[in-house]
């Protein structure tokens, strides 16, 4: 299997089979919180893809060239979360300065991303991830790509959810089901559909 084939497997896994939201349960707060409107969901999705890609790249470098050589692996959690927080802050400042239009649409979501567990989740998962052969660990490119693809997976379900919830506004629901309960049940049905990708056997 060539490198392109490997990338294809990674993409299918990250986006559909092991979807971050529906099968790994990561990033649920923005998934439930920012999925009421399609445009804000799109903004959030783009911001998450951006930060997840950068975070995967930076945390990989920090782990490989700082933590492992100096036997500091027990500092992984602290160093990763600080990297992500600093990165988000930095990205926010750069975008604000150089692309005010982009900042207007993404700006509000950026601070929220620090506490999005999908970002820290992908960084930690990358450290434990292996290729399909089970021996080669992810290299720098693989980790970055995995971050990007996982972000895409997050965005796909976020947009689907927002599309459904926009229409749901006009439907008549029992009073007790409105808001969070129906969103959760919807997520459950979507998760059920995504199980189809796994080829689930009993």
């Amino acid at each position, binding site marked *: 299997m060539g490198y392109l084939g490997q990338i294809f497997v990674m993409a299918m896994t990250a986006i559909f089979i092991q979807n971050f939201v*529906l*099968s*790994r*349960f*990561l*990033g*649920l*707060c923005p998934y*439930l919180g920012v999925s009421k409107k399609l445009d804000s969901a799109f903004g959030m999705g783009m911001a998450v893809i951006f930060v997840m890609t950068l975070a995967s790249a930076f945390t990989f470098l920090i782990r490989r060239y700082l933590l492992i050589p100096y036997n500091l692996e*027990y*500092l*992984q*959690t*602290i160093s990763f*979360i*600080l990297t992500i*927080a600093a990165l988000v802050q930095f990205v926010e400042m750069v975008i604000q300065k150089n692309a005010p239009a982009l900042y207007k649409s993404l700006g509000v979501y950026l601070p929220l991303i*620090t*506490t*999005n*567990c999908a970002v*820290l*989740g992908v960084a*930690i*998962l990358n450290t434990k991830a292996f290729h399909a052969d089970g021996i080669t660990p992810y290299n720098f490119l693989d980790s970055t790509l995995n971050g990007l693809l996982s972000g895409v997976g997050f965005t796909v379900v976020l947009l689907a959810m927002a599309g459904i919830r926009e229409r749901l506004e006009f439907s008549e629901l*029992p*009073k*007790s*089901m*409105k808001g*969070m*309960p*129906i*969103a*959760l*049940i919807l*997520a*459950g*049905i979507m*998760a*059920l559909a995504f*199980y189809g990708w796994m080829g689930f056997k*009993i």
Partner: protein
Amino acid sequence: MRFFSELAKGIVKDNPIFVLVLGMCPTLAVSTSVKNGLGMGMAATFVLICSNIIISLIKGVTPPKIRIPVYIVVIAAFVTIIDMAMAAYAAELHKSLGLFIPLIVVNCIILGRAEAFASKNNALNSLADAVGMGAGFTLALVVVATIREILGNGTWLDIRVLPQAYDPMLIAILAPGAFITLGFLMALINIIKGRK
């Protein structure tokens, strides 16, 4: 008597999961069995108590502009402690909770209580708040886990409650079951609140 009212509010009135809707990721992910739920609840409560006390003690010297990074470092330090302690003394539980132990760092409940409560109150009240919120979180996890484990496996805390002949509803312990269970539980809570 403020101590006790701060303690009680987290359990029912301001329950972090059912009322404030914070910290959904671990709730849905580790509520596959009551044992996992209890383990996660206790680990998060430990971090919550320690970080709330420390943050309320250093609130006078923390510059307001960089308070969030300071809180995150405090929380991350305690998460690392509980992560390593669990790996050493409860290896099996540590393995089944997996990724979700380091992810306590980004649990909104802990940062939320640090920002909303511990940074404004004294250490004693922050302790009460942390114990109450931790207990409320653990309670919610156990309730969700009870439903999922009984339906999906026919057991409760590894004790068989439904007869052998019961064919387990496997969906309850898989990902979709988590969402659907919590959705119906929240609807139930809305009904109870509406009656009052």
